[in-house]
């Protein structure tokens, strides 16, 4: 049931309350924190993709100026760690991961030794003095090559380099294949990405005088980091305080457990002084988790009228050298469960294999699995349309899950349920905003003049705010799906909100205030929001899986209702009437139908704290804490359209227009929502057009080792984005909100690929893998022309 009857703030495009600080240089990121006596840690990283470590000689480093400590993996063996994943799909073989490599390094960038010195420059200098004898081994970086016979093996307990085998089945694909007019086969590659938060990771660990520990780090999940660090380093959890100040972007990359987050507290404890580690950008490319990195084989069983009878998927998910935090779940549950997209495909069969390679570990990055899943569904339906020469829009309409079908379980799935949606309306709205018919004609006209324009269409749905907790257990998570909120009213009636969600640029101070202000009926200026400090915030899971509004927001909404419920009881006592006769309206407790003078929220708050006149049995104070465990997950959806022009002579693509129509349920703040779409779409455009991590297949060297080589788009490379919304409230939470943060990066990659393929249709090009760089397009056009002239 949705309960937003008294809406005043929800739905308003309020400007952000957090902006002033950030605009004037007063933001406080971890790298801005200065502590007295701070030492600096630097890491020696493996230059080899796969090598036995024969000897680590730290003597010169230990003698270098300013050095206080130098340690190798052997020195640390048995003293902390190992690093264990938080999500382990049942049946997964988990490779042992030492915090610092002990006798073998398995990717370029793996920690091999560390130095702590008085200045960062001294620490870097001393790292250069460490002498390591390596014996290099054959390396494998590609997921297809890694499962071939004779491939280098990474871990003794992971035969064939496969940690996890996961299967999904609904209906009867084999039967559908027999009944089909035709089977279309397609291999698609989901290119490996670097999340590239503008703030790199950074950790400061400080032993405190009271025998506690403070760790400052840009964490999307402060309370989970507290547990993981406490368990892995051996610090009592209640004595460990995680402080996550302003975070310069997370996108999933700042929710895992990395070696440096363990090493800093460890060495700080050893030395008894605060120690800082700061990640340089080039270091980040080889130490912070990557994203995507899949190869998928698709078989689509179709009727010649465009009906899709069945889909068969085989996924190889490259997770790098070890299983990072959630790594076994990404290519499996998060990807292939969503392989049918917004379409009714009754017969579905998917096999996902999780593969280790000599590369940086791969983990969650904006959408985690859902972009890959949507890419499967969208590339499949687009390939069918192209093959049958059907309109891209018509084939989607024909196969869409219909409005009346919700809640919908695709392919009879037990685990996947799409709570609500209206894809036909989304499509109509998107087509109108885009002028689809006009531009379709324009494409045809221009093609006659040798101008190659194309329209891309992509739709998506997915599931956000993973919950309830017991369901997470079934899929192998060592965490719950709840979120915590505390609303503390002071004696003047002002509110402080303590939320377990964690903003990384999302604007939670604004959006959470809007949610609370509507329930509490107090001015938004009277609300403060506290996040990112485990000493202040009672508990939490944090921000990922587009869960902050649906789970964190709902938690706050219900908690605020409890405040009002208690305040109503107090008001009833003050007014000497029955509680059920008291209404709360416009920030006043009133007794309708009487001439009893209204009581302000502030006066009731005062009474709560002086406690002079409370109803029998009611405790003083106006301060509520709630652990909210949702009953289900919300399913946002959307239709995106792109318009491009391809220069067939050079392979250059000009992105002319991009329209996104998204259904994220109730909009808390349309201005901020559009901002999430803009940013997500551009990260998706980046995947489709520009970004790709490259490894040298022969020796496993990371070729995109800095921002010089890894093509994050600049303002010139991306278009304006029209972001529109449709509001189909989610029935799974009291606000009706769905997730939004991942929508853009899910929809944009297939949308862009389809636009370029549409432009290249005259050349007979039906498939290209991302990123669609000019050389790749140029080569395809050349090959097509050469083939045609043969």
């Amino acid at each position, binding site marked *: 049931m949705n309960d937003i009857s008294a809406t005043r703030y929800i739905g308003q495009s309020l400007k952000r309350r957090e*902006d*002033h600080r950030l605009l*004037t240089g007063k*933001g406080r990121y971890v790298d801005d924190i200065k502590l007295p006596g701070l030492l600096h840690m630097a890491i020696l990283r493996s230059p080899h993709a796969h090598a036995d470590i024969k000897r680590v000689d730290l003597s010169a480093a230990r003698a270098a100026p300013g050095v206080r400590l130098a340690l190798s993996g052997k020195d640390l063996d048995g003293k902390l760690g190992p690093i264990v994943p938080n999500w382990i799909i049942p049946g997964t073989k988990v490779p042992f991961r030492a915090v610092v490599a002990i006798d073998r390094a398995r990717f370029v960038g793996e920690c091999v030794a560390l130095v702590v010195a008085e200045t960062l420059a001294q620490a870097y200098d001393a790292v250069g003095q460490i002498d390591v004898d390596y014996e290099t081994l054959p390396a494998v970086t590609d997921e297809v090559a890694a499962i071939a016979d004779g491939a280098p093996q990474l871990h003794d307990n992971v035969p064939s380099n496969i940690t996890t085998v996961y299967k999904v089945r609904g209906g009867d694909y084999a039967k559908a294949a027999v009944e089909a007019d035709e089977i279309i086969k397609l291999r698609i590659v989901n290119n490996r990405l670097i999340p590239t938060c*503008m703030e790199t990771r950074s950790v400061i660990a400080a032993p405190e005088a009271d025998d506690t520990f403070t760790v400052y780090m840009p964490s999307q999940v402060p309370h989970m980091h507290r547990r993981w660090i406490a368990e892995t380093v051996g610090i009592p959890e209640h004595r460990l305080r995680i402080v996550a100040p302003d975070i310069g*972007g997370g996108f999933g990359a700042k929710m895992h457990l990395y070696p440096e987050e363990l090493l800093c507290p460890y060495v700080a404890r050893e030395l008894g002084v605060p120690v800082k580690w700061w990640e340089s950008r080039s270091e980040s490319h080889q130490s912070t988790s990557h994203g995507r990195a899949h190869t998928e084989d698709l078989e689509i069983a179709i009727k010649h009228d465009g009906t899709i009878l069945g889909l068969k998927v085989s996924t190889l998910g490259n997770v790098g050298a070890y299983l990072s935090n959630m790594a076994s779940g990404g290519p499996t549950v998060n990807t292939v469960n969503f392989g049918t997209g917004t379409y009714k495909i009754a017969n579905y069969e998917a096999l996902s294999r999780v593969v280790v390679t000599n590369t940086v570990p791969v983990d969650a990055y904006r959408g985690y699995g859902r972009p890959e899943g949507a890419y499967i569904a969208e590339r499949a339906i687009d390939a069918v349309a192209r093959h049958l020469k059907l309109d891209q829009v018509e084939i989607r309409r024909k196969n869409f899950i219909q409005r009346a079908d919700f809640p919908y379980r695709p392919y009879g799935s037990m685990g996947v349920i799409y709570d609500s949606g209206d894809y036909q309306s989304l499509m109509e709205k998107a087509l109108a905003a885009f002028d689809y018919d006009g531009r379709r004609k324009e494409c045809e006209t221009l093609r006659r003049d040798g101008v190659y324009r194309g329209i891309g269409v992509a739709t998506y749905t997915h599931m956000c705010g993973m919950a309830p907790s017991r369901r997470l257990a079934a899929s192998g998570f060592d965490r719950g799906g709840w979120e915590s909120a505390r609303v503390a009213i002071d004696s003047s009636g002002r509110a402080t909100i303590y939320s377990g969600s964690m903003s990384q640029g999302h604007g939670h101070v604004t959006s959470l205030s809007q949610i609370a202000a509507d329930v509490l009926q107090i001015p938004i200026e009277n609300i403060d929001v506290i996040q990112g400090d485990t000493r202040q915030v009672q508990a939490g899971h944090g921000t990922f899986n587009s869960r902050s509004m649906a789970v964190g927001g709902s938690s706050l909404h219900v908690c605020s209702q409890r405040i009002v419920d208690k305040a109503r009881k107090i008001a009833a006592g003050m007014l000497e009437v029955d509680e059920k006769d008291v209404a709360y309206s416009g920030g006043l407790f009133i007794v309708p139908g009487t001439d009893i003078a209204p009581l302000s929220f502030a006066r009731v708050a005062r009474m709560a704290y002086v406690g002079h006149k409370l109803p029998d049995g009611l405790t003083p104070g106006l301060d509520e804490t709630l652990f909210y465990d949702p009953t289900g997950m919300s399913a946002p959806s959307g239709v995106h359209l792109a318009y491009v022009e391809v220069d067939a002579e050079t392979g250059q693509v000009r992105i002319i227009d991009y329209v996104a129509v998204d259904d994220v349920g109730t909009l808390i703040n349309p201005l901020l929502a559009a901002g999430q779409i803009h940013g997500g779409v551009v990260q998706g455009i980046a995947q489709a057009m520009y970004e790709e991590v490259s490894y040298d297949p022969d020796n496993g060297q990371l070729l995109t080792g800095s921002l010089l080589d890894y093509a994050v788009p600049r*303002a010139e490379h991306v278009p304006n984005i029209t972001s529109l919304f449709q509001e189909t409230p989610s029935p799974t939470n009291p606000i009706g909100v769905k997730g939004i943060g991942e929508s853009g990066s899910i929809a944009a990659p297939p949308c862009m690929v389809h636009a370029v393929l549409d432009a290249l249709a005259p050349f007979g090009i039906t498939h290209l893998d991302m990123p669609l760089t000019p050389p790749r397009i140029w080569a395809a056009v050349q090959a097509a022309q050469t083939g045609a002239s043969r």
Partner: protein
Amino acid sequence: MSDPDKLHDVTFAINGKQARLAVEPRRLLVHAIREDLGLTGTHVGCDTSQCGACTVEIDGQAVKSCTVLTVMADGTSITTIEGLTPSGAALHPIQAAFHEHHALQCGFCTSGMVMSVRQLLRDHPAPSEDDIRHGIAGNICRCTGYHNIVRAVQSAAGKERQP
């Protein structure tokens, strides 16, 4: 070769105040600004001069302060993001436009972006959209997709011309 450990005296004006530092020859200006002078509004987002988060003004020109050795700044006049709003002052028109148009999310690139936009509007008082997108091409933003930054610059363009 000069002694890498020898400290060099450097003097410059920063946000209208004189600063005197003794620095190693290898010390980058951005580190001097952030660590020696405590002006942490200027950020470090990369190590190859790609991201622009460290952009400041030196003698009225936008410069990535990671490309400058501190000793090279001797005798100059530097403005950082903190210099745009002397204590108690209202937001600079560019900052106000960023707020109005939701042109920042995590805020990490924002200081450098604002300083680059100042340069852009000095070079192009009435910029076209292409001018704007080209003018901020030295600054990477990962959150906003640039859309609202472009809107903010367009909005600020009219106001910036007034003294």
